[in-house]
């Protein structure tokens, strides 16, 4: 191993077969109390044609088998708990465990969504308080907590725009999307029945107001913008962008994926945003859990409030009620009231920080990104020479000339004990390395990471083939993703 590798050294890891392969007939890990009513024969109660025999190949394992199996699998994962996880735009910050404890309090974990409002006041208060905090942070007027994730929030948000424009007589046809946007934006616009028109960024990586002015006509419903954008650059002319849209009767949607850079420093509601979503699993540190659950609240200006999906919280006397009587509401986007357990975690996070602490977290996130940028910019080509907010984006221009691309560098980082940055995104940067350290990383961890990337840049100069064959130290060597897609095997079979 390279002398430059400081964070990790190799250690044997356990092998483990699939559950189905370690099963043996008759093993079981469950206990049920004895039935306190007479046992019923399923065939007699449901009809023989409606019942099934034993489920073929379903696991038969003991409790010890279960815990060893999943513990062994867990050791094959990287995680924030093991170190810096610099995925740009994904905001992989430390997840405080108090949030987990709060969500598991009996009175938070066990309420049924259909129990009477009179027996749900605490849950409703949590939601009301979170709505209040999110309004304060975003500078918006009203919030729905119903959407289950960021992309789901985008969908709800675009439906709100459509409903608003319809109420003005014309839903319009197009959504404008900068070429630096996340893939969910165009996919969402399409799902909401709009055509997508891409807007080229200017030479500074920002929305080009002149191009925008030409593109906005009576067919344009909205622009979906991410601010700071996916380059980590604050859209300097965002207020002008809003004005161009508003002058033509169109609205401004903000993808809040990068809100981690703005909390306490700048409020979308103050710079002309009409609708936005937040990713509670990013900005407000609810755990990503290997891909979810998330939560994607949508915040709007007053003009859009009547269209928020039902039900909404309503204060009647000193009690909360669910109000379903909202004639202008767009339809439900999800059953019940949203990912409540995630909302509890986010509120716990906000409470732990307080207003000043949230702002400090933002500044620390910007500090960490700029520190990494400074340490790396002699070795990697910065994509756009604009001030960085919470993330910085490099290109692989220098390394590409020597034969290694961003994907190779990412895989080599794994040998150094780090999860790779976001690879090849945003699309407007050729061979992008998109790095977001977040505020929860110490200087020590940041330095280890910068050292690793610098060491890799040197390795590329010395032995590019070695880097291209990475990773070298993982228990699973380079995975054949092309082979997986060619003939998909997506389930275990005997």
């Amino acid at each position, binding site marked *: 191993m390279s002398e430059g590798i400081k964070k990790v050294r190799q250690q044997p890891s356990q092998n*483990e077969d*699939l559950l*189905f392969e370690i099963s043996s007939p008759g093993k079981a*890990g*469950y206990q049920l109390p004895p039935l*306190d009513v007479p046992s*019923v024969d399923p065939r007699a109660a*449901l009809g023989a044609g*409606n019942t*099934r025999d034993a*489920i073929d190949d379903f*696991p038969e*394992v003991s409790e010890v088998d279960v815990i060893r199996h*999943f513990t062994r*699998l*867990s050791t*094959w994962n*990287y*995680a*924030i708990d093991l170190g810096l996880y610099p995925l740009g735009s994904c905001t992989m910050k430390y997840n405080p465990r*108090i949030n987990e404890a709060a969500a598991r309090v*009996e*009175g*938070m974990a066990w*309420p049924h969504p*259909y*129990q009477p409002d009179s*027996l*749900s006041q*605490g*849950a409703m208060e949590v939601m009301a308080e979170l709505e209040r905090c999110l309004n304060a*942070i975003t500078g918006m007027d009203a919030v729905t907590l119903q959407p*289950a994730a960021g992309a789901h929030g985008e969908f709800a948000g675009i439906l709100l725009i459509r409903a608003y424009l319809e109420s003005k007589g014309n839903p319009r046809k197009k959504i404008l999307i900068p070429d630096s946007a996340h*893939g*969910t934006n165009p*996919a969402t616009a399409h799902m909401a*029945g709009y055509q*997508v028109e891409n807007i080229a960024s200017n030479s500074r990586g920002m929305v080009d107001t002149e191009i925008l002015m030409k593109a906005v006509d009576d067919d344009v419903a909205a622009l979906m913008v991410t601010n700071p954008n996916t380059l980590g650059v604050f859209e300097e002319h965002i207020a002008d962008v809003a004005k161009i849209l508003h002058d033509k009767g169109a609205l401004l949607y903000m993808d809040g994926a990068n809100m981690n850079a703005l909390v306490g*420093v*700048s409020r979308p509601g103050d710079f002309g945003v009409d609708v936005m979503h937040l990713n509670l699993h990013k900005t407000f540190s609810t755990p990503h*859990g*290997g891909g*979810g659950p998330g939560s994607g609240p949508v915040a709007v200006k007053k003009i859009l409030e009547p269209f928020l999906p039902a039900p909404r919280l309503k204060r009647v006397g000193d009690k909360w009620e669910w109000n379903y009587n909202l004639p202008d509401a767009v339809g*439900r986007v999800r059953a*019940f009231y949203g990912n409540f*357990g*995630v909302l509890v975690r986010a509120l716990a996070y906000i409470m732990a920080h307080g207003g*000043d602490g949230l702002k400090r977290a933002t*500044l620390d996130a910007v500090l960490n990104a700029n*520190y990494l940028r400074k340490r790396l910019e002699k070795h990697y080509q910065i994509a756009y020479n604009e001030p960085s907010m919470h993330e910085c984006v490099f290109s692989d221009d220098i390394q590409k000339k020597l034969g290694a691309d961003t994907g190779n560098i990412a895989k080599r980082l794994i040998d150094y004990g780090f999860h790779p940055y976001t690879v090849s995104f945003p699309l407007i940067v050729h061979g992008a390395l998109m790095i977001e350290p977040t505020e929860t990383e110490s200087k020590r961890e940041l330095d280890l990471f910068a050292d690793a990337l610098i060491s890799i840049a040197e390795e590329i100069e010395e032995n590019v083939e070695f880097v291209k064959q990475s990773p070298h130290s*993982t228990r*699973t*060597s*380079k*995975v*054949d*993703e092309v082979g*997986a897609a060619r003939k*998909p095997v997506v*389930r275990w079979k005997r």
Partner: protein
Amino acid sequence: MLDTIGVSSLEDLVAHLPAAVRYNDRLPIPDGKSEYEILDYFRKLGETNAGLQASFLGAGVYRHYRPVMVDTIVSRGEFLTSYTPYQAEMAQGTLTAIFEFQSMICQLTGMDVANASMYDASTAVPEAAMMAMRATGRSSVLVARNVHPEYREVLGTYAKFQGMPVQEFAFDAESGQANFDDLATKLTSDTAAVILQSPNFFGIVEDVKQAAALAHEKGALLVVIFSEAVAMGIVAPPRDADIVAGELQSFAIAPSYGGPFAGIIACKEKLIRQIPGRLVGETKDKDGRRAFCLTLATREQHIRREKATSNICTNQALIALMATVFMSVYGKEGLRELATQNLSKAQYLGAKLKHRFSGPFFNEFVADVGAKDVAEMNRALEAKKIIGGLPLGRFYPELKNGVLLCCTEMTRREDMDVVAEVMA
């Protein structure tokens, strides 16, 4: 660090923001609190919610025992604090667990392919309908009126902007099962999907085979929905469906006032390229060892953008892991015994009350209270620390005398006796 960057204060880092967009006030959020204060806040608020007291509510959210193993495993930081497994070499743990999840969902449902999760069943329903639209090239959808009312609402929201007319077909007033005569008259050459739930919203098992025959005869696909996954321990899997969309909340996921849950979509092999969401596939590493990775990503938004099968990105991975651990703990014999306990409890209470429908039910049924006041009955139960069933008038005006009651393995006989006494 400031010196390295070349600035003198943290504020300097954001000094380039135009003054007009800066927020110069202090956020109106109280000062940071300690762990103790935060837990105390949620405990106190939690005490004003009904938590684990006796309850007969089901209707899409079920109270099942959560084996301790589930939280033990999902609390491991390596699962809890990892990202979507895009970097396969660093995420074999999550990828392997998802592969097992997909396999178990296939075993349960009788399908060939299952995705790595959807937000919940309510959002899986429209995604399944859109799959059927793409697969058949047709545009309209027929949904049974005894599918969960909120799932139908969400379907309506999505359908409106897809150019996808949604029409409902009736349920039989006597059996509570879908009315196939009504379905047959509404099926046309433009029907992409027939959507049926089993057990349906009233807890009654449907004849999936017959629905499939009707749908297929007209070239439509059959989508079968489930909200009570425990039923699959004894109820025949919907093998004749083309797509199965469902809710796994029953598999060790706390009711949590309605979420987070985990939905799934499973389907026949031929529809694999139409399925939304993430899929994990088996492959090999450079040294020829078995490995797993995300696959068929060309269906997804980060590659295909506006041409993707769905905009879904973040899903419910950790919740799906809870379900995976649950299925491992209960296993082949346990799920069957658990389902039988649920059935037996519901039968016990069911035998003491007048039923609105005659169809075979699993762990929920609709009691007919006749001229009695449902709200008053539930208040009487509340006084005895019992949450009664769901009055159905809210969703079905014609069933205003109906109460949907659910019994699970956690329902105690003495509470059922009280309900029977109050409601009889």
